[in-house]
């Protein structure tokens, strides 16, 4: 199971880098979403993958019987998804503002704050 997830994480990261290098802001933001999902998947796998073994503790015991997945990384992933969603929403609104204020989403044309030095 883990190799499959590892390849998925790698594939997501590769697609993310490809999008982020395109030089266009909206694609960059989409790349960022893919990259954060790659990170989330990696954390998810770090807590062990055990299909069909819910992490339940039998009555009277202190630890689950047998090998089960660690629930903490899943909680971390949930937190990270919520935070990532908030940041993505902000980034999208900022992209929209950039489009209306600057009239372009091409990274190379965004020179308002750092104008080219003309000599």
């Amino acid at each position: 199971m883990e190799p499959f997830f590892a390849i998925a994480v790698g594939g997501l990261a590769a697609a993310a880098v490809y999008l982020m290098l395109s030089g266009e802001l909206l694609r960059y933001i989409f790349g960022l979403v893919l990259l954060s999902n790659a990170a989330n998947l990696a954390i998810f796998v770090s807590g062990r993958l055990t299909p069909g073994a819910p992490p339940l503790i039998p009555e009277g015991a202190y630890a689950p019987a047998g090998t089960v997945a660690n629930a903490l990384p899943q909680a971390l992933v949930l937190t990270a998804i919520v935070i990532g969603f908030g940041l993505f929403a902000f980034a999208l609104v900022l992209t929209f503002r950039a489009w209306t204020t600057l009239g372009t989403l091409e990274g190379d044309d965004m020179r308002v704050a750092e104008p080219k030095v003309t000599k």
Partner: protein
Amino acid sequence: MSWLLVAPLMLPFATAIAAYLAKGRAAGRWISIAGSALLLVAATLLLVEVNAQGVVAGQMGGWGAPFGITLVADRLSAVMVLITAIIALAVSVYALADIDTRLEQLGYHAIFNVLIAGVIGAFVTGDLFNLYVWFEVMLIASFGLLVLGGSPEQIDGGVKYVALNLIATVLFLAGVGLLYGATGTLNMADLSRAVEGVDPGLLSVIAMMFLLAFGMKAAVFPLFFWLPAAYHTPAFSVSAVFAGLLTKVGVYALIRCFTLIFDHDIGYTHQILLWVAGLTMITGVLGAAAQSDIRKILSFHIVSQIGYMVMGLALMTPLALVGTVFYLVHHIVVKANLFLIAGAVQRLAGSTELSRIGGLYKSAPLLALLFIIPAFSLAGFPPLSGFWAKFLLVKAAIGVEGWVIAGVALVVGLLTIYSMTKIWAAAFWSPHPEGRDTSLSQLSASDRRGLLLPIAGLAVITMVIGMAPDPFARFAEAAAADLLDPAAYVSAVLGEEQ
């Protein structure tokens, strides 16, 4: 004594809520100032307690370490909290004169206090994932402050700032996940023991992810490009608090992780840090030399100064860490102050572009005096605070025969003087190109107070550190000793008797 740890966190949040309820009214400003003043009291109490009792730790919600979230303050954390409170107070007083009602209406004071809460949270947390959460709090508040007002420059700078900082965030998160997968814990004190069982090669890979993530936050070479793209665009209050605090949170996280967790292969990881430090100093100072706007020059100088702090961490000797701690404290005060002065220059001369201003030595001699103190301190003139900070670091470098890095540090100091004299010559000495000579007395009394009180206050701190460096150096020495031997930190967090 966990309330001592919780108070500096809760105060800014409470202030933020109160300020939001009063937004758009004059009360908002005063709530912000009062909140910052209370924060200063709380931070002072925490520092006194930590200095007397050693590491203070508190388990939140009664969940014992390493399972719950731990708040913990050693000397380094405590002094960073105190200096954050000082900057928060200075900037909220400055905001009286700098922030107009339009920005207040948009909730400036509330977002500012959330930013402060995020910064303090990052300093006092003892849990790696919690650190990630505080970084996010800080980040989203800084996004808001950066684009508040929405001018084209701000949007443009904001895009670059947001885009690059989000990558750092994702890298940090992935690093946290991998480290948890390898060790099964996220408590930093617990991690410092748990990493002993991990394959050193794997640990070095994870360390590099953290180096990239925190390095991007700290604006080290070659990851600093978001900083000079954005820091000159927002209101002066905002860029002062960014310049003083935000990159230093990255440096703090680097120090914490690379003394507590990733000290398994110092020959490899800290050698990389040393290269990073040297290149950061050089590129920063050369970038500054090419700029002609006060805030852009100062932004590049943040980058070059970060190099000094990382240099102390990279050398990893007791004296070098003393230098780093001393440098952090000195730098935050000086850098925030220089940005505040840039705001006063803009107010009097009408711009921060060096070719369009001048004559301030004649029209505002007091401001000229107040500029000289932090500017020369930044460059490292004795007897100001920067001299001692640089002296400690260079001495540490020579002590381990790091001639190259010591040489770099000295040359970068010289080039810093070049930039500062450039600002001095253009803004203060040469006449104003349009013959404008607004003096301080032409400002309204309340504006004058708002602009000059924080600048003078921070200048006094710089002078005091410079004239009487002994108690500060002794404190830094104790802080560095804590960092090099984390046994007390670890046992305080894990609740073991020493």
